[in-house]
């Protein structure tokens, strides 16, 4: 076999002799490989971005809500109907924790979708302003489940959540939730700064469920906060800004809620520039406290929601079915009775966002199938514009690789002519045809590998640039780099074959006489 190592310096020296032509050939290959890397990075980026978007939008989230206000219709909930509404509700947050009216189930005729503080609660509290109801509970007035609006329809417990986590396959995180409206005050502030907001009693894993979150200051609730029902609070970005001003770090400050003191331990914000926190939204105009603390202070024992994430979007349907079966069994619901909870998969809702209308209609009209689709299949149908660009970049890559290859061939033919005497000499000294061919092939491969490495560097830089300036997602994987090197290698060999053949077929006598 030809040993390339001793020939390597020779090949380099030969390339340096024609450095201008070599540079041109390298540039051709570089552009080709860079275009190749960039197009592959964009293609891969689009795929990843879609996956990320789906996860960030909560496509793998299933929300189980206490109660089932449709019960009085005498039918089990039609999940498609539920989801169908939500899917095209522009304002809908991906993780619907909107309060549902639980009492309705037990008071037929009660208006569906009515005020959750109506009816029964009015009899307990005499205040007219429903917003004030929970703000100053005296110890003796602390609400039981019934009075807190959870009612007897508040069917979910932390035990349910625990068993779900343990027994349902395909479940990644399970988070219990109690959701209230609450007024929080800055403690010890003379002007009594306050903000009326959403209160979520939750658990330490919530940030894992909210893929779009970033903990911008401090930390989120810890498992021990939950175990000890600590009086600590994580603020949504909007609440932090309203109470303490933008850019001020509120961690360590004290707030009061229900006349109890809570220490601020962190702030959550949005990771995505597309979903900026706004007043009134459910995630960032909100405060988070341990679910156990809400239970303790309000004397509650049940949950409004249990939020579950699945390991992949495609498993949502199967996981939802397992959850329904398990909860029905745990709640002792007979065949004839409807569920006392609602399971909502967020996949369709998440998918519905940001789709072109005709595609959204297709998704909406084919809901049952959507969850069977894989992310890859979806990306195929969603990235048409992307593909146009990829085809363009791909053609640029192909053309520049071709031009680069011609450059390499041209340079080598020049080199063969210049070094005819040398080739003749080497043959006289005992070089076989294959030795001569290998030497020129090595030069071609060396040339295109240099171009390949430069091309990868430029491709990575270009992908990064596209990402930071245009917010296109581009991902250069090791596989992409490997493919680019392979492409350069093949290009070098293909471009080198003809010159190498020419060199190896030189007749030594004439070659030695060549001037």
């Amino acid at each position, binding site marked *: 076999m030809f*040993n390339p*190592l*001793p*020939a390597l310096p020779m090949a380099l*020296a030969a390339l340096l*002799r024609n450095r201008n032509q070599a540079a041109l050939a390298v540039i051709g290959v570089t552009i080709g490989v860079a275009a190749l890397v960039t197009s592959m990075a964009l293609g891969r980026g689009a795929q990843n971005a879609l996956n990320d978007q789906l996860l960030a939008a909560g496509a793998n989230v299933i929300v189980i809500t206490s109660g089932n206000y449709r019960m009085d219709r005498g039918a089990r909930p039609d999940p498609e109907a539920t989801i169908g509404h939500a899917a095209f509700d522009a304002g809908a947050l991906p993780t619907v924790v909107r309060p549902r009216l639980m009492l309705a189930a037990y008071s037929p005729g009660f208006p569906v979708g009515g005020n959750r503080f109506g009816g029964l609660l009015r009899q307990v509290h005499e205040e007219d302003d429903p917003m004030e109801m929970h703000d100053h509970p005296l110890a003796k007035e602390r609400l039981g489940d019934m009075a807190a609006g959870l009612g007897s329809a508040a069917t979910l417990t932390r035990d349910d959540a625990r068993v779900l986590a343990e027994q349902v396959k395909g479940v990644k995180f399970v988070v219990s939730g109690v959701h209230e409206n609450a007024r929080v005050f800055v403690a010890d502030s003379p002007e009594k700064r306050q903000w009326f907001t959403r209160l979520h009693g939750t658990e330490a894993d919530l940030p894992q469920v909210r893929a779009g979150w970033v903990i911008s200051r401090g930390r989120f609730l810890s498992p021990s906060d939950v175990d000890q029902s600590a009086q600590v609070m994580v603020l949504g970005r909007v609440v932090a800004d309203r109470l303490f001003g933008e850019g001020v770090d509120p961690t360590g400050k004290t707030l009061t809620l229900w006349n109890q003191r809570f220490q601020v331990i962190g702030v959550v914000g949005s990771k995505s520039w597309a979903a900026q926190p706004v007043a009134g939204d459910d995630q960032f105009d909100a405060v988070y406290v341990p679910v156990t603390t809400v239970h303790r202070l309000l004397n509650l024992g049940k949950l409004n929601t249990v939020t579950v994430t699945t390991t992949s979007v495609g498993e949502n349907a199967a996981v939802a079915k397992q959850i329904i079966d398990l909860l029905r069994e745990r709640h002792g619901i007979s065949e004839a009775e409807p569920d006392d909870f609602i399971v909502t998969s967020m996949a369709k809702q998440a998918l519905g966002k940001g789709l072109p209308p005709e595609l959204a209609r297709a998704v909406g009209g084919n809901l049952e199938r959507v969850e069977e689709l894989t992310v890859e299949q979806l990306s195929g149908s969603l990235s048409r514009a992307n593909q146009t660009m990829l085809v363009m970049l791909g053609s640029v890559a192909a053309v520049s690789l071709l031009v680069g290859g011609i450059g390499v061939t041209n340079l080598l033919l020049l080199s063969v002519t210049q070094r005819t*005497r*040398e080739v003749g*000499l*080497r*043959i*006289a*000294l*005992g*070089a*076989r*045809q*294959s*030795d001569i061919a290998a030497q020129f092939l090595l030069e071609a491969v060396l040339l295109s590998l240099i171009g390949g490495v430069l091309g990868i560097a430029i491709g990575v830089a270009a992908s990064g640039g596209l990402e930071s300036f245009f917010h296109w997602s581009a991902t250069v994987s090791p596989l992409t780099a490997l493919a680019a090197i392979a492409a350069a290698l093949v290009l070098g060999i293909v471009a080198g074959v003809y010159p190498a053949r020419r060199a190896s077929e030189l007749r*030594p*006598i004439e070659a*030695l006489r060549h001037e």
Partner: protein
Amino acid sequence: MPVVSLQNLKKIYKLGDNDVHALRGVSLDVEAGEFVAIIGPSGSGKSTMMHILGCLDRPTEGKYLLNGVDVSGLSADDLAEIRNRQIGFVFQGFNLLARTSALENVEVPLLYSRPVIPPADRRARAGKALQAIGLGDRTDHHPNQLSGGQQQRVAIARALVNEPTLILADEPTGNLDSATSIEVMRILQELRARRNITIILITHEAEIAAYATRIVAVRDGVIISDTPNEPKSLLDDAPAAPMAAAARAASA
């Protein structure tokens, strides 16, 4: 057994519509340790002979036995190996690789030897060959840093590095002045005397041919005379005197 045996060798080139008879039946035996000068004017066919002797070309007719082996039937790769192992070439134009050190130039034949010679061995052998022709202190010099005589000595070292049985020197002094020419001839004489290497020299100068032990005159593709010669010896009377020292003295 003769080192070289040419038997009724003919070579016909096609040049356009005409056949050119470069060799018209040449027979020649060269024994080991002979120093043969092939002399003749240009167009006499001596270069064609040289190419066939060097396995760079094949005869149209006739046989060429090298160390008893008929090379006319061998494959291209086998011929490459014979050139590599059994024949050392010295050219008129030196044919050194530019921008390449003397040592690396001498290493070139070793690059093509099979089995593969490890780099360290290659360097060692090339260094020894340069030492033997008195250029041990010039190993890192590039051809453009060497005089014509030194360059031809590097070429001789290259021819010697694989320890061939036959050295083919094609007008080795053609590009050299007379003093350096004599120096090159002295080295060739020394190689013959010390190592018993067979040398075939091609030249058109009678003064150069005078250093050989046998003179073969060629004209129009046939041998017209083949006579033994009492060579003009350039060797020191004391054979112990190292060749390298003498070479340094001459090149200084």
